[in-house]
């Protein structure tokens, strides 16, 4: 069975989905204008556009899309209306995919650094020269410093699994992903409570508390769309956030919580639910572990106590607890995603998970759902070779209490590379990830790069990370390549599979990372591990889904009608007690707080300083799409959100240039006076203040988040803690 899916669609079937609109007489259209290409030809009269299915690659959601191709040019990306996970939508970033494809700033051929790092002097290489060089350098580091002397950092991409596989056959355990900068603390907390990381059934929920999440701006499908649908059906949304996000704007209630004190709020919620007996006692007896201990534990955490900690009135906390419990089990504390905020983030999220447990919402409509069966299978790959000179563990082993071995911690890995201990790492392979912009404490990342003998970056554009590399290899965009299949969890919307085939051929000399790795493997005597084609790989992935090939071809997506609710009926939880753990025995054994204990903030905000928080908007995917011409227009530079009251004290007016500084570094950007932020907090968007002159739209604009943020980490998971930085703000020129 071949799994290459011809994704071109007949015009008739496309029209059928796009909804019959009234046809009308029109004037002639004009030829596509593509400033990046030498295309000047007029459209030949009467040529029909072609339509191709694909999956968006502008962020991690992989929304189904239909690409329109006219005369070999992708002229428009529209949502695949049959794609349930995204509810048939494409956001601003998805629509701007053409601008990534035809970006004049794209990397066009392999580049070798000639000058000092960051100087921007490059020599064009042929692919053979580049691959020979890379293979030679990686082999040399492997021989000199063991195979673990090379760190691999793949981003979130459908081909990243091949970087993991390459690292494995090359012989390095040192692989860090974006996850230790993102959601590890949430994963830790929910794994250690329910035994599994849940998906939120937002659509069927009647009451949602969202803390540390901004779902209307940080779009996650289907949650963001389902949240609006649920609200239209009467679901109540309560948002706790130090700033007035668009999610806060659309919520029923917004509380500008004191940053870092969410645990107190949720312990008080738990206090009310337990002491007013608002939980289902039968459910608690059957499913929960440690309720007696929790009851005792939260006695002191009354709403009156919490109000003083988190700045939310006691009577509101009590009322919200009562409303939440009344809506249970179709009620939830939204688990969130990026939880890289505080040194105790895992315990903060544990407090939320415990409150969820008391709502009895696990595995139920409107609650927290277990992963559904998608049905894709891992391909059968040969056994990776064993290198007996390798060290015993990862570089960052043991640097946090309960780390995820497969994810590691970027921060701890970086510290270890700088220290050269426990062993030296001298090579770095990055793929579509931008730690120079996204990881707190940029100066340390630069220091780490200084320790390296060889750094190789594969990316689409000259990111700041590519800018610092020795060898930069151009990758094609998601619209130009063949990808593996990807199984997706879509909460109550679906469990589905998507894949990609090239909508148009790859531009310039760009090559997919799969091809690059296979070529490298061939040059390093590892060809037997990369002897498969993408078709064969995909065929293996889909071997247990006989209908998937047809569905992917005809609909651009395959749905597995797997069980959604009641997956845990008659089953045990994957925890030590085999129940939902309010009290975590394993934590107790390790000397950790078995239940979340509210402790003072690591550092209080002095009256002349601010806590810096970061967060998403709907236009940018972390630090990657700011230079996209279409999206850049929506936000050409980042600003510092500051409340008018402290701004007045500092003599800062709206639009003034301000200098923002911390113990890590400093940056200059414009102030934006906002009443919708706490007086003790400032905020800035990510992805500006770039080092790379290869990002022509953003170079010289705004300040870099990674430069300002100090690199604290969550003590339990090793996840980055990005809201622990206290900053000074001054008007530029003011002493």
């Amino acid at each position: 069975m071949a799994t290459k899916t011809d994704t071109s669609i007949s015009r008739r079937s496309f029209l059928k989905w796009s909804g019959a609109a009234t046809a009308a007489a029109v004037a002639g259209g004009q030829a596509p204008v593509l400033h990046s290409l030498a295309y000047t030809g007029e459209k030949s009269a009467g040529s029909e556009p072609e339509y191709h299915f694909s999956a968006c690659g502008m962020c991690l959601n992989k929304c189904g899309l239909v690409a329109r191709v006219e005369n070999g040019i992708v002229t428009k990306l529209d949502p695949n209306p049959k794609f349930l996970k995204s509810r048939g939508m494409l956001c601003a970033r998805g629509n701007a995919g053409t601008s990534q494809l035809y970006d004049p700033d794209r990397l066009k051929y392999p580049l070798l650094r000639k000058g000092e790092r960051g100087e921007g002097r490059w020599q064009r290489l042929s692919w053979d020269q580049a691959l020979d060089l890379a293979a030679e350098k990686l082999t040399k580091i492997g021989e000199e410093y063991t195979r673990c002397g090379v760190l691999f950092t793949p981003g979130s991409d459908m081909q990243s699994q091949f970087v993991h596989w390459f690292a494995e056959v090359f012989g390095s355990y040192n692989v860090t992903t974006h996850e230790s900068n993102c959601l590890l603390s949430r994963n830790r907390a929910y794994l250690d409570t329910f035994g599994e990381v849940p998906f939120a059934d937002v659509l069927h929920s009647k009451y949602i508390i969202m803390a540390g999440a901004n779902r209307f701006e940080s779009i996650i499908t289907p949650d963001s769309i389902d949240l609006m649908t649920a609200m239209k059906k009467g679901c109540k949304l309560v948002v706790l956030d130090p700033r007035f996000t668009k999610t806060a704007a659309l919520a029923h209630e917004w509380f500008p919580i004191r940053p870092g004190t969410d645990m107190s709020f949720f312990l008080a919620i738990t206090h009310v639910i337990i002491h007013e007996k608002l939980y289902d006692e039968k459910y608690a007896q059957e499913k929960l572990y440690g309720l007696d201990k929790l009851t005792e534990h939260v006695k002191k955490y009354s709403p009156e106590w919490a109000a003083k900690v988190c700045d939310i009135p006691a009577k509101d906390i009590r009322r919200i607890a009562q409303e939440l419990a009344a809506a249970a089990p179709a009620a939830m504390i939204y688990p969130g995603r990026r939880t890289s905020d505080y040194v105790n983030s895992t315990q903060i999220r544990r407090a939320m998970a415990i409150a969820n447990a008391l709502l009895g919402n696990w595995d139920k409509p409107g609650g927290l759902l277990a992963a559904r069966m998608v049905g894709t299978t891992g391909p059968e790959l040969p056994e990776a070779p064993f290198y007996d000179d390798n060290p015993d563990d990862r570089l960052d082993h043991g640097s946090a209490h309960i780390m995820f071995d497969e994810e590691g911690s970027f921060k701890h890995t970086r510290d270890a590379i700088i220290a050269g201990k426990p062993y030296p790492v001298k090579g770095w392979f990055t793929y579509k990830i931008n730690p120079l912009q996204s990881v707190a404490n940029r100066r340390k990342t630069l220091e780490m790069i200084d320790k390296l003998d060889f750094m190789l970056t594969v990316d689409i554009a000259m990111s700041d990370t590519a800018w610092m590399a020795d060898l930069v290899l151009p990758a094609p965009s998601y619209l130009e390549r063949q990808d593996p299949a990807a199984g997706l969890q879509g909460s109550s919307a679906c469990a589905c599979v998507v894949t990609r085939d090239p909508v148009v051929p790859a531009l310039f000399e760009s090559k997919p990372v799969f091809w690059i790795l296979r070529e490298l493997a061939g040059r390093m005597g590892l060809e037997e591990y990369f002897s498969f084609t993408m078709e064969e790989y995909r065929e293996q992935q889909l071997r247990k889904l006989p209908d998937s090939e047809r569905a992917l071809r005809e609909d651009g997506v395959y749905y597995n009608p797997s069980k959604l609710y009641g997956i845990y009926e008659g089953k045990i939880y994957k925890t030590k007690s085999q129940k939902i753990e309010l009290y975590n025995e394993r934590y107790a054994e390790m000397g950790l707080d078995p239940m979340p204990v509210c402790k003072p903030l690591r550092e209080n905000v002095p009256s002349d300083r601010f806590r810096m928080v970061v967060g998403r908007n709907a236009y940018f995917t972390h630090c990657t799409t700011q230079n996209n011409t279409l999206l850049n227009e929506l936000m050409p530079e980042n600003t510092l959100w500051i409340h008018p009251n402290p701004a007045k004290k500092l003599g800062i007016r709206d639009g003034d240039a301000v200098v923002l500084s911390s113990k890590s570094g400093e940056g200059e950007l414009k102030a934006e006076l906002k009443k919708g932020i706490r007086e003790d907090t400032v905020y800035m968007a990510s992805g500006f203040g770039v080092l790379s002159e290869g990002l022509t739209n953003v170079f010289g604009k705004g300040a870099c988040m990674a430069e300002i943020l100090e690199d604290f980490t969550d003590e339990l998971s090793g996840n980055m803690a990005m809201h622990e930085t206290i900053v000074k703000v001054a008007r530029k020129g003011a002493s």
Partner: protein
Amino acid sequence: MKTQLAMVIDSSSCIDCKACMVSCKVENKVPGGYWRNWVKQREPRFGKIPGAKDPAAQAEGCRTWIIQAPDFDKVKGYGDPGSMHFQPGGCMHCANPACVQACPTGATYKDEKDGTVRLNDKLCIGCGCCIPACPYGARYRHPEKKIVDKCDFCAKRRERGELPACVITCPTKARTFGNINDPESDVARLVKENKTVRVVNEETDTEPNMYYVLTTAPMNWPRKAESPTPIRWWASLAKPLVWAVVGLNALGVLVMFGKQLIIKDEETEK
């Protein structure tokens, strides 16, 4: 009944993601710095709303916050003016379009077939009279084509049977599109089932075909339609003449001449 294409917008669904704007920009090749459509926003009114009612809340040392009212002020039938909301818009394809009246060449016209306000590229001399005539700011002068450009409800897409780019891409489906005169259409149903308003300037009601569902209080932003009197007079006189000239194919020369004038003007300005 005649077809009248229209849009019904539920602003309370809009999350201000700007997908509609980017989708439109790509589809219609709108140049950087210009837009055919938009999302406006009402700034929130921050205050101690619950605190004011409940001094005890302040006694706990709580800071400023707002609580938004989900139950809008039913008396007036408008949404809470204190809450923030996002209001998508674009050309309203008015029934009484001031831009059509302001156009001296007849380039801007009301399409009889579907009720859209259209622009004939070949007739537009780029004089820009229609720009201030639109109370909604829905028109701009295209910097390269040197003619005016605006939303045509994605005529080319509709010709292929596709929905307008802004409608199909919207995550929360805040924009609904169809023939308002067809009682079976989604737009007609929405207007029938909901209280809706049309946002107009008090002095110049152009009878827009964009309806806002009254779940939010629409912002009052349209300006007065401005059409210079001489232009209006000239337009009324010139229009029949212009149409007659079309048949004679002499207009091309006229248009070229006109365009050159405009281009030259702009160059001298630089």
